[in-house]
């Protein structure tokens, strides 16, 4: 159907799309979960917040599941090395994620305040730990990861969990949490009414400038303080996928090279810097749908900035840059990519279609009136 080379690029794009889907949609429901103790002063407030995402969080979470599944299928080496290398971090993410399905579903089944309080903390952990760790992981991808490949392509990770928590990794981790919370706050502005909405608006107004500031700091840090990776040999982009067939090395400022090469790509960081500010203006003017749209677009900009900076690298190795994974040599075979492309072309539009329909059907703000009416059936 397509050239192997084209397929490789398609899957880089598709995995970006899936990750964007995850951060945009799971972003707001994790943001809502993280805001429970901040905005939800009473049990009623918290129920309003949770019910604003009740019909959707389940579907939203599939973006994460699908992103992980697609990485397994399209970039098996990356899936294998990242998940086993970041073992403890991945386990912590997993344990945090346990709390969400059960927390949402079980919390309101029993009225006892201690029961509900415990689940609120569970949901809070399930909504803050995953973005923190995913952010830290991305912060480390940008710096290179200490892994090695042997001749059978078995990977060994030589770092430790605490080495992940370096200053830049932590900065990206905190940034990711704040980005999710910002997304959650604009969602709550749009989907709730009364005091919850007002408090959410305040959160958006405070967070939007902070998110922009951290994004800018991280950008400067990458330009000045973090070495990127460059390929030093020609890769046969249509050839067999084996990371050990090329050479690569560390170079200062390498993560900015693509912006020189493809000047249009500068749009991504520009969106990342500007759209949170638009969200700020929209929140100020009480245009909540516009605020939510702005933060969603900001997320696209932020993720694409990361992707453009690193292309074609996916997971550089700091121990042996030659073993780094790139979109050309850490991918599945041509046939597998072809089949998955075919499936994605049919099913991703379908998914978007019925997901939109679900949102359309559940349209409307949630407040005290709603909660009184659905006291027994709502979360």
């Amino acid at each position, binding site marked *: 159907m397509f050239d192997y080379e084209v397929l490789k690029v398609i899957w880089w794009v598709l995995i970006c799309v899936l990750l964007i889907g995850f951060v945009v949609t799971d972003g707001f429901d994790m943001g809502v979960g993280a805001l429970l103790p901040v905005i939800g002063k009473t049990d009623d407030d918290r129920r309003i917040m949770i019910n604003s995402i009740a019909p959707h969080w389940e579907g939203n979470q599939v973006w994460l599941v699908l992103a992980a599944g697609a990485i397994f299928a399209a970039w098996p080496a990356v899936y294998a090395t990242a998940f086993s290398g970041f073992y403890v971090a991945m386990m912590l993410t997993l344990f945090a994620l346990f709390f969400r399905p059960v927390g949402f579903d079980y919390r309101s089944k029993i009225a006892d305040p201690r029961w509900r309080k415990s689940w609120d903390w569970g949901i809070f952990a399930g909504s803050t730990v995953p973005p923190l760790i995913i952010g830290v992981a991305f912060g480390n991808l940008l710096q290179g990861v200490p892994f090695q490949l042997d001749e059978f392509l078995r990977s060994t990770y030589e770092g430790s969990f605490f080495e992940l928590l370096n200053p830049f990794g932590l900065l990206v981790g905190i940034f990711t949490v704040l980005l999710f919370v910002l997304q959650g706050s604009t969602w709550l502005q749009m989907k709730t009414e009364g005091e919850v909405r007002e408090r959410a608006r305040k959160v958006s107004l405070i967070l939007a400038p902070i998110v922009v500031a951290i994004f800018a700091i991280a950008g400067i840090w990458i330009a000045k303080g973090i070495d990127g990776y460059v390929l030093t040999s020609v890769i046969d982009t249509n050839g067999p996928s084996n990371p050990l067939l090329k050479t690569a090395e560390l170079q200062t400022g390498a993560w900015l090279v693509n912006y020189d090469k493809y000047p249009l790509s500068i749009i991504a960081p520009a969106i990342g810097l500007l759209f949170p500010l638009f969200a700020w203006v929209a929140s100020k003017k009480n245009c909540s749908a516009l605020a939510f749209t702005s933060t969603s677009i900001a997320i696209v900009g932020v993720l694409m900035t990361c992707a453009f900076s690193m292309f074609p690298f996916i997971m550089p190795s700091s121990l042996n840059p030659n073993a780094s994974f790139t979109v050309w040599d850490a991918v599945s*075979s041509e046939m597998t990519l072809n089949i998955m492309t075919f499936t994605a072309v049919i099913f991703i539009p379908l998914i978007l279609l019925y997901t939109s329909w679900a949102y359309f*059907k559940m349209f409307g703000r949630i407040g005290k009136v709603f909660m009184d009416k659905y006291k027994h059936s709502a979360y």
Partner: protein
Amino acid sequence: MEEIVDLSRFQFAMTAMYHFLFVPLTLGLAWILVIMESLYVMTSKEIYKDMTKFWGKLFAINFAIGVATGLTMEFQFGTNWSYYSHYVGDVFGAPLAIEGMMAFFLESTFVGLFFFGWDRLSKLQHLMATFFVAFGSSMSALWILVANAWMQNPVGAEFNYETMRMEMTSFAELVLNPVAQVKFVHTVASGYVAGAMFVLAISSYYLLKGRDLAFAKRSFAIAAAFGTAGILCTIILGDESGYEIGDVQKVKLAAIESEWETHPAPASFTLIGIPNQEEQTTDYAVKIPYALGLIATRSLDKEVKGLKQLMDEHEVRIRNGMLAYGLLNQLKAGEQTPENIAAFEEVKQDLGYGLLLKVYAPNVVDATEEQIQLAVDDSIPSVAPLFWSFRLMVGSGVAMLFIFVFAFYQSAKNKIGSNKLFLKICLYSLPLPWIAIEAGWFIAEFGRQPWAIAEVLPTHIGVSSVSVEQLLFSIVSIVVFYTVLLAVEMFLMFRFARLGPSSLKTGRYHFEQLENKQG
């Protein structure tokens, strides 16, 4: 190294079996909800809507934990079986990704509308949402089982020395894998049985307590009909027929029968006996003539191979595998001459057998006769656990067949609840589907040992380069989390099952009417 393999296997087995406590109920109950809601749409009787909502409440309690524990499965291939993920991700990853796109998204999007869309959707739209939940979960099972069946019988793929992994050669073969077909029907139907037994048992409880009779009888009848269909499919279209395809499946069949020698066709079935691995015999065997041949080959003239003969065949393939491994080393070292490539292609289907030697002889090619013999002994699983699990599974299945058929007969004769003893039997049979299902998965997965991917990748090669400390951390944490989750889930399940439809707060059911009378 050995510790890491054992701990990784333990963790995988534990989390997979735990996850599969919840999956079958989701599979079965979802369709029961579709049946109930269809009746509501067709008759407009509120009681069917209440039934859909109440059993839907119990469905939700189960579904939440099923989703949570499913995440573990997805993470675990990467975290704990990273070489496996590299080696077969090209083939094994695809059905998992397709499952997400085709099935899991559908199920998860519409489950939200199922719970919260009652007043937002028209009757038909809501029924459609319920249908998509059920359809999505069964489709999801299909793709997962395609992936699992490939581990049992890896068709449509071959090893590529340039990328050091298995690569897909035919997607059609992967999907149409005969093992996948039988596995799908058998597994999904057994899930339907679990859903039916769940409704049957809890309805029997209400009938025994003499409350909400109209509600309970209707639920009982639906469960009886659905369960009868389910158990018949599970047993008749059972997956024994998948056991004659592929070498490892044959080993599994011989092991669950404890059949050491190849007997002339048609083979007899060992009803009971004590497998003796050391002597390679079955002590005190009680045999039924012809039965095994009929079950396994559906014929009277095909023979069923015994374990000893299979092991002899394995020895040949292990020696071939040593050649393949040696040639692979040459190719890796850059000696990619046409002769070497041709020679490697000739023997590469036995490369996996060569890898069995890795635990004894890291260089494989220099293995001694003694080491080869050890690898041959390893090439079949322990027989006794398989032998007994199979009997446990079949026994539970046959017991359920009687229960469902009798329940169905009662429903047809309009005699539901007439026999207290039978209601008690139904209630206490609740664990049966779970016993059978867990035993079944044990047979499928333990029976595949020593392989992760049959004839391709030994389990011990597939692990990650992680430390024992990391594994202990994850195992202990998972045990703690899962125990707490199970306790909470059972607490809620019992609470809402005991409360019954009164939990809907419609004012129409037992406890609320009791309150009204007293008030």
